[in-house]
């Protein structure tokens, strides 16, 4: 009973904060709503006996990725924010696509049947503790993907450095022809470097 109540609470909070996150005007509020959502996702992982993943969800998603988003939001000034022309101009088209996709997927769910059980029943995980079990699985069956994940992080690190680097020629031209902008630009780049 308590499990179901907890699931209901988390589901309600996830849905409302998700909807608020995509509908609020101020991007900082969107990021904060996603923060609330991530905490409740961690709660759901706890109900699924995935304690290590709950911790990773809070540390990596809420602690690192969202802080990165907040930093970028502070670098890109709110008033003059970076916008694309909408991929689909009329917002109702997007909403109808999303609702249709959701209805179709939910309609299909009852037809789903579980396959063959794997090698880790709940008792075995509890005996070994979840972190240890996940570590064993990571370092034995999926060692190569683990190494590839490390490589992906390295690529992201180098890519971030290359993207954030100032180009020498470009900056000279910028400072030459945009004198009134020079002040704000210099401040931003100081923060970046």
């Amino acid at each position, binding site marked *: 009973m308590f499990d179901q109540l907890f699931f209901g609470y988390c589901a309600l909070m996830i849905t409302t904060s*998700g909807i608020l996150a995509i509908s609020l005007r101020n*991007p900082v509020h969107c990021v904060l709503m996603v923060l609330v959502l991530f905490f409740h996702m961690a709660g759901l992982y706890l109900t699924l006996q995935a304690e290590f993943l709950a911790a990773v969800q809070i540390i990596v*998603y809420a602690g690192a990725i969202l802080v990165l988003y907040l930093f970028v*939001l502070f670098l890109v000034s709110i008033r003059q924010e970076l916008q694309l022309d909408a991929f689909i101009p009329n917002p109702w088209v997007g909403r109808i696509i999303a609702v249709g996709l959701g209805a179709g997927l939910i309609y299909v769910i009852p037809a789903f049947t579980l396959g063959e059980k794997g090698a880790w029943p709940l008792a075995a995980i509890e005996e070994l503790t979840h972190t240890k079990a996940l570590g064993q699985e990571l370092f034995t*069956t999926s060692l190569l993907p683990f190494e590839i994940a490390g490589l992906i*992080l390295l690529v992201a690190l180098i890519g*971030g450095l290359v*993207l954030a680097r100032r180009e020498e020629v470009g900056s000279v031209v910028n400072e030459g022809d945009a004198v009134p902008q020079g002040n704000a630009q210099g401040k931003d780049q100081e923060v970046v470097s």
Partner: protein
Amino acid sequence: MIPLSWYMALAVVLFCIGVCGFLTRRNVIVMFLSIELMLNGVNLNLVALSHFLESLRGQTFTFFIITVAAAEAAIGLGIAIALYRSRRTVHVDSLNQLKG
């Protein structure tokens, strides 16, 4: 005990919220956030399935998805800053140089 279909339905709802946000918003950073929402929906599905299938494969997959999401956020936001830096003095809300 919570049935599996509840988790799957919640994952579907979360994924569709992400799709809706990606299609309707115009702010690049909020679009990236919508992608994170979609990834979280998939993660929830994978963790629930790995719990009910008594296998840890789904959870290792979730681990890798979180890694890739971190890399994607770093690169995507780097591109956003670079775009903002180079296009700010011109029309900010018409980033359509790649349009034919």
